[in-house]
């Protein structure tokens, strides 16, 4: 077993970015993303990382700089949260439309108003259709690992797509915990130098970002969609080759206690770890429940998800974001849609929980599981107090 090191999760992320030998980092400070970029600035200032660190005047410019540098052939990185992501929004769509393989860590935080600096997934869900590969991690080790995986994947010539790694703000990003790192030699072996097919250079001029008339736009979008779906294979490959390097294996849908399960929790991000503990306790009490954690949100793992829920009677889907006035949380809405054509599809109970940093405890998961009713609206905004009254 490799030696484990204690590290704040944000610093682990910075360590991985450093080991990926990025050429350029452009970022603008926003809580709770700051620790990652501060540490990267230190690495550059101390000469541990030979990269440009550009402290820009806005998130909009952070991503703009990365687009420019990536188009010039430099491996680039940025990192943001919440309002910062919202400000970047238009550029997220452009980055993927231009097929620039950037990697961004999104330290998830709720969107204002009311202002909250704490964690939920409303930021990333606001750009759900931005066309990036979107991954979620559960712990510091996974974040560290997924930085390598993300670059490997993004720069794969068969993929050429930017990647967002979602990490929960504070409750994960600011936690000091143990993890294993890989050596620089292993890092080099896993991640070859960035070799883009086209770059901005006078030796071979290209035009990037032309405007299209209706005769081409649909085709361009269709290719984007097909490419994003087709990245599923390379995602599996990237996970596999990472396992060879690190010994840790990852899957688009992580399964725990799913054998003979009658009910399944489905969740994304770090709260899946608490949910796993809750499921473990319920199993010990003889309750046939299990847990699915979506690691890959885009491309959406339709086939794997359908396989994983076969035979299950009820899904308890926990969303960390709300579609106000809509069908509930985005995760549940998408799973419902994915299962619509299935025979014997399970009942779905959707909880919107953990908004703006509200804690979800083991007891909460058990309460959610023991509630039998499905609201007419198909979802419930879980606020603990109500749950206590019901219990």
């Amino acid at each position, binding site marked *: 077993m490799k030696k484990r090191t204690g590290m704040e999760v944000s610093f682990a992320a910075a360590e991985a970015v450093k080991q990926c030998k990025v050429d350029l980092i452009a970022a603008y400070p926003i809580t709770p993303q700051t620790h990652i970029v501060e540490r990267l600035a230190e690495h550059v200032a101390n000469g541990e990382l030979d990269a440009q660190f550009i402290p820009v005047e806005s998130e909009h410019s952070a991503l703009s700089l990365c687009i420019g540098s990536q188009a010039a052939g430099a491996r680039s990185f940025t990192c943001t949260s919440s309002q910062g992501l919202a400000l970047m929004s238009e550029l997220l769509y452009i980055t993927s439309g231009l097929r620039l393989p950037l990697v961004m860590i999104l330290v998830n935080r709720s969107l204002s108003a009311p202002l909250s600096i704490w964690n939920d997934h409303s930021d990333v869900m606001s750009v759900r259709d931005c066309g990036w590969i979107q991954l979620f991690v559960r712990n510091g080790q996974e974040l560290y690992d997924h930085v390598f995986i993300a670059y490997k994947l993004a720069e794969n010539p068969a993929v050429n797509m930017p990647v967002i790694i979602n990490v929960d703000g504070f409750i994960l990003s600011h936690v000091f915990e143990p993890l294993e790192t890989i050596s620089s030699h292993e890092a080099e072996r896993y991640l070859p130098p960035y070799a883009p097919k086209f770059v901005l250079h006078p030796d071979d001029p290209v035009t*990037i970002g032309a*405007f299209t008339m209706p005769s081409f736009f649909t085709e361009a979008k269709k290719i984007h969609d097909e490419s994003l779906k087709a990245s599923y294979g390379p995602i599996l490959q990237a996970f596999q080759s990472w396992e060879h390097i690190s010994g840790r294996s990852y899957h688009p849908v992580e399964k725990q206690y799913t054998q003979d399960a009658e009910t399944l929790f489905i969740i994304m991000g770090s709260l899946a770890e608490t949910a796993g503990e809750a499921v473990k306790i319920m199993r010990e009490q003889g309750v046939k429940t299990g847990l699915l954690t979506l690691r890959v949100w885009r491309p959406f793992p339709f086939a794997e998800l359908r396989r994983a829920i076969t035979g299950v009677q009820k899904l308890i889907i926990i969303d960390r974001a709300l579609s106000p006035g809509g069908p509930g949380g985005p995760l549940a809405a998408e799973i419902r849609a994915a299962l619509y054509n299935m025979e014997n599809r399970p009942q779905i109970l959707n909880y919107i929980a953990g908004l703006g940093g509200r804690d979800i405890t083991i007891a909460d998961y058990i309460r959610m599981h023991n509630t039998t009713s499905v609201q007419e609206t198909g979802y419930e905004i879980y606020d603990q107090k109500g749950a206590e009254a019901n219990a």
Partner: protein
Amino acid sequence: MPSLYAVKTLPSQEYFASGHRACPGCGEALAVRQVQKILGRNVIVASATGCMEIVSSPFPLSSWEVPWIHVAFENAAAVAAGIEKGLEILQRKGKIKKQKITVLAMAGDGGTADIGLQALSGALERRHNILFICYDNEAYMNTGVQRSSSTPFGASTTTSPAGTHQAGQLTPKKNMPAIAVAHGIPYVATASASYPLDLAAKVRKAAATRGPAYLHILSVCPSGWGIPGDATIKLGRLAVQSGVFPLYEVQNGKYKITVPVQELLPVQAYFQPQRRFRHLHPETIEQISQDIREKWQELKKRSDKTN
């Protein structure tokens, strides 16, 4: 006045190809063509959204014989900054060969003085080694002649129309070159395609500058200003000769008028051919004229002081 034949000394090579879809007589397309001639082949262009972007890149066609990227409206300076920093480190790490490559950011007056001002200020402040060119046609021409902060006082646009209760643009033109100068950057200049040799000299200086350089080029817009397409060059000259748009440069803070004007022409000579000023009352014109003369004297004083 330079020799009539002197323009023949300018490079014959074109980098902004024919077949672009700018309006006939477009002063902005002409300025772009002249600028790219001088910058030559070792350049990368980051363009903001706007007329020049639309007319030069209707997929699958492109008029850019040099590497060119368009990302969005407000971020040409930031994209250029990323390219510049990307090239710098790739060269330093030996991943690409070391050579001088000019990184040019270009935008219209909206992409410079309005929506693009923040990204531009950031890039100038961080001292990126880029050349930023504002092609100023004094309104949002691409979307149909809406006012910008660079629209001159009194000009009628579709969002500052001359009506019964309002006589066109209510606010004076934002002084972008002064804003650039305030960033303490090494080179700032104004230019006009009606003075191709002056423009060429400034583009050369700007490209040779280490650190940020800012060029502000008045780009006559026949469609938006309401003039015939063949009057573009004349209007550019009148803007300079009337003191409306003086040609000068600011090198390390030192001002120099590069196209001296002995006696300013009356501003009416410049206004008269343009539909956008046609509604102005003589008193308003007199007031504008007064203002232009004051600003001209101020500029002359600054220029005399440093020369």
